């Protein structure tokens, strides 16, 4: 799985790492139980600060996407947790924004379906 970090964008680097790992897990590019690089290796690999890499892992761990242990390092979690309230809130806001942009129910559902096919099914 290729991680591409954009240093000129507004999204913080740790957030980009978090987002891309979540997308890769959803798409099956990273499978549950798969080992991720250590914080040091990830920092070395991307040329970023160790604190930034650590922050990304802490976020992923807090959200239940990975587990970290002293022996195994970071591992993709077997069963991610339930949908969090903030995810639902984010989805609700996005749907509202799409509605205000002039899209109808069917168009919004089709858009969601297309995104699902692209990100998860890889179509």
């Amino acid at each position, binding site marked *: 799985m290729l991680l591409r*970090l954009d*240093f000129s964008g507004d999204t913080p680097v740790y957030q980009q790492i978090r987002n891309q790992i979540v997308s890769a897990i959803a798409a099956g590019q990273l499978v549950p139980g798969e080992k991720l*690089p250590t914080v040091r*290796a*990830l*920092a*070395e*690999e991307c*040329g970023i600060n160790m604190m930034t890499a650590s922050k990304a892992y802490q976020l992923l761990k807090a959200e239940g996407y990975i587990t970290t242990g002293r022996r195994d390092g970071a591992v993709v979690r077997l069963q991610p947790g339930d949908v969090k309230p903030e995810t639902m809130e984010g989805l609700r806001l996005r749907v509202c924004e799409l509605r205000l942009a002039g899209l109808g129910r069917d168009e919004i559902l089709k858009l969601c379906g297309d995104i699902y096919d692209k990100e998860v099914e890889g179509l």
Partner: protein
Amino acid sequence: MTLGWRLFMLAVLLPVLPILYVMLRDECEPKKNIIVGVTLPYAAQSDSVVRGLLEQYKREMRLACWAMLAAAIPNLLFSGFGSFLTYWLVWVVALCVVPFIPYIRCNKALRQLKEARGWKRAPDAPQAVADLQAAAQEMRWLSPWWFLPPLAASLAPLAFDWTMWPLWLADALIVPVCWLCYRCLYRNRTEVVDGDSHRTMALTRVRRYNWGKFWLTMAWATGFFNIGMWLTIGHVWLCMGVILLYGVVICTEAVGIELRVRRLQEKLTADCGAEYVDEDDRWIWGMFYYNPNDSRMMVNARVGINATFNLAKRPAQIIALFLVALLLACPLFGVWMMGMERAPVELAVTETEVTGTHYTDQWSIAREDIAAIEVITDLPRLRRVAGTGMDSALTGQFNGDGWGRLTLCIDPRQGPWLLIEKTDGTLFLFGGSQEGAAAAAAERLR
């Protein structure tokens, strides 16, 4: 300096030129999609304009190397060590620039062509690309135990010949330095070429394996070198042979490993698809890494096994500037040696002390500390421990056959010499460049 010595030095230094030629010529073969420091798509690698630029690059580089070879020959005419060394050091500085001019010219031309043909794949925004699966593959470091036998071997001469301990210890230090370089200089970044993690892992393993192999070979070669030096220290030409052999082994191994890694990189990335990593924007002239978004001070070289500096980082800039200044100042060392070579050795006796002087070095002995003096007409066979050994001056610490450790400040061409034994038993051998200096000094001391 005899013609034999000059030819020997020529034989030692000149192979650098063909090695450099082979390395630079090898840049024409695509490795990780990179040709002469420019990332090109697979189809573009056989483009007729690209091939034409590469042919021109080869021609210009051949010319540059022939020019450097021709420039090396006149050095045989210099008989003085200082002038010979100065010429060589100027030649080495030129060697670090001249053959790279065709490389830079070709790199610029290929970049322009790449822009014009729309082959550029790098996004306009600065990006970092990493392969997470390959990065998770941990580096297996060689055990330090592998470095212990060569360390023991290189320290062995100390047990048998304590008189030359600074030399043996300095040589033995190379082994732990090899281990430190192995552990500290390796940049643990995977060799990402495209989205194929298996390819990235294979390329990374190739680099890791050969990195360890090089430093371990260097450590073992040093161990054997020290033993060889100890066995041949009394025979100048045999000793020089051991040094030469050591140099040949190290150079052959370094060049061999570099070429082997390049060949594997070439093979493993020969069928890269449409999606590949393009980092050209971070490499000035295809050889100097400059990326302000990269926190690392050192990064892997683009092809082969080496590492290089990230010139966007302040410490790297300082180190690079220091290295460039050091390189440019090298010929000054030759000039300094010329001054040393021409400076006379002086021997002076005052009411209170005896002083031997040569260039910037001076040794003084208080007259009350002198236990005995003797004027000698034949020098013993001398082995230098630390100091200067020139046709016109021998100064510093030496071992004399049957005499043990001596401090010398003499002109070996102008005897006799004054042997002074101090009350603490230490021996000094003084002599001046002027005829009869030692005899006159002995007379005054008596």
